């Protein structure tokens, strides 16, 4: 070739960069391609059902950062604040980055949080396609909570006491950050979320 610089069209160059961006961070971080690290939350795959009634594999979230929290729909005080905090955190990112963050909210109240209830909750909080609101059985919710470090107990009234935290999972499902800040953006979480995003081309 006469010209030592490869002549790529602008479009192809962008495509290449996008492809590299999508694969590099995973390849660089994982022990081996496809192999899940031992400290990944995705080692546990609870039987989740999403707000549309579809089965949801938590490991399908692998490949990008995820904000995870646990809640119950009839909670009137703190749980709406968790939704609000997640929305604020997403809004603090540039639009192009926002699209690449997924949010997973899992109920620990399967008796009352049916698919229909989750669907209504997702609509009430204007949750778009990046959001998954999921339910599972009691035992699986307890296990997932144990992995995430979430504490909860059911009261005789049917209400719950529970810790209210948001966990950030990295592309391989490892807990990268945790915040107890509500109704405001935790700067430390946001900073870690930015670094967890695959580099943009």
């Amino acid at each position: 070739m006469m010209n030592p610089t490869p002549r790529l069209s602008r479009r192809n160059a962008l495509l290449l960069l996008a492809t590299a961006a999508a694969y590099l961070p995973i390849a660089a971080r994982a022990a081996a391609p496809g192999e899940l690290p031992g400290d990944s939350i995705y080692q546990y795959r609870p039987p989740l059902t999403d707000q549309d009634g579809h089965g949801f594999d938590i490991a399908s979230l692998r490949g990008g950062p995820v904000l995870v929290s646990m809640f119950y729909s009839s909670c009137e005080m703190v749980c709406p604040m968790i939704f609000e905090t997640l929305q604020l955190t997403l809004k603090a990112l540039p639009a192009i980055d926002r699209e690449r963050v997924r949010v997973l909210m899992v109920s620990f109240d399967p008796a009352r949080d049916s698919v229909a209830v989750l669907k209504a909750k997702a609509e009430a909080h204007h949750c778009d396609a990046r959001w998954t609101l999921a339910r599972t059985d009691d035992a699986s919710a307890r296990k997932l909570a144990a992995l995430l470090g979430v504490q909860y107990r059911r009261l005789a009234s049917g209400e719950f006491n529970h810790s209210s935290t948001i966990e950030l999972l990295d592309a391989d499902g490892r807990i990268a950050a945790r915040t107890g800040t509500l109704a405001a953006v935790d700067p430390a979480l946001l900073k870690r979320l930015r670094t967890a995003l695959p580099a943009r081309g």
Partner: protein
Amino acid sequence: MTIARTVGIGLLTMCGLACGADYVALPGGRFVSVLPQGSVPTATVPVEIAPFAMRATPVTAGEYLAFVRAHPEWQRTRAPVVFADKRYLIDWRSATELADDGAAMRPQTSVSWFAAKAFCDSEGARLPSWLEWEYAAAADETRRDARADPAWRRRILAWYERPTAAVMPNVGGTPNAYGVRDLHGLVWEWVDDFNALFIAGDSRTQGDPDTLKFCGAGAINVIDRDSYAVLMRIALLSSLGASDTTSSLGFRCARPLDGAPP
């Protein structure tokens, strides 16, 4: 010689549920926990404990070895660290050998909550709930609820003052009124809902921004502050993560009485 002592390790590898472990039936009934169970966090209401069965002794190292042989994914070299920390089964000579020849009847400690759950699953059982454990542990040798007796309180408290023995004694202490052994005096034990046992010590946390971390009525208040021995259990359990292991923390399994689902 206790019944548990007569159960051979070889037998356990052949049959898990039916002939493996010695379970004792507990009738259940009304029980007042040291933790409030009603909607008002400062007052307790009795709860109804359903009848259940519980292992007469904590799970022994010999029994745990049989489990690991049948479920190699729970060998210490293979269990993902998210399920069991780096000290899981640390006292074993290797991934499939106990610490020494005398270890088989000692309680197995250095086991995470996930590992303990998997063991109980393997014999069609589960971990006891905190309330079930507390209810069983309220009994002394003759009374089903000895908690009001200061002499008994002092006796179980004395164990917590003793330094941990270099070598754990074998399971098989004196049975309590239900026939359950070693609930006090040998090891700490996992319960299924360990991550439900968070505590607020008193009302000084009211108005504290930290209370926002807890939704609903806030964290648990403790009703009976004289039950130090039991409160230490709760404090320990509430401080643990599900992959944590310690050299004095073991477990036993529970299951419903015949006919009911686990």
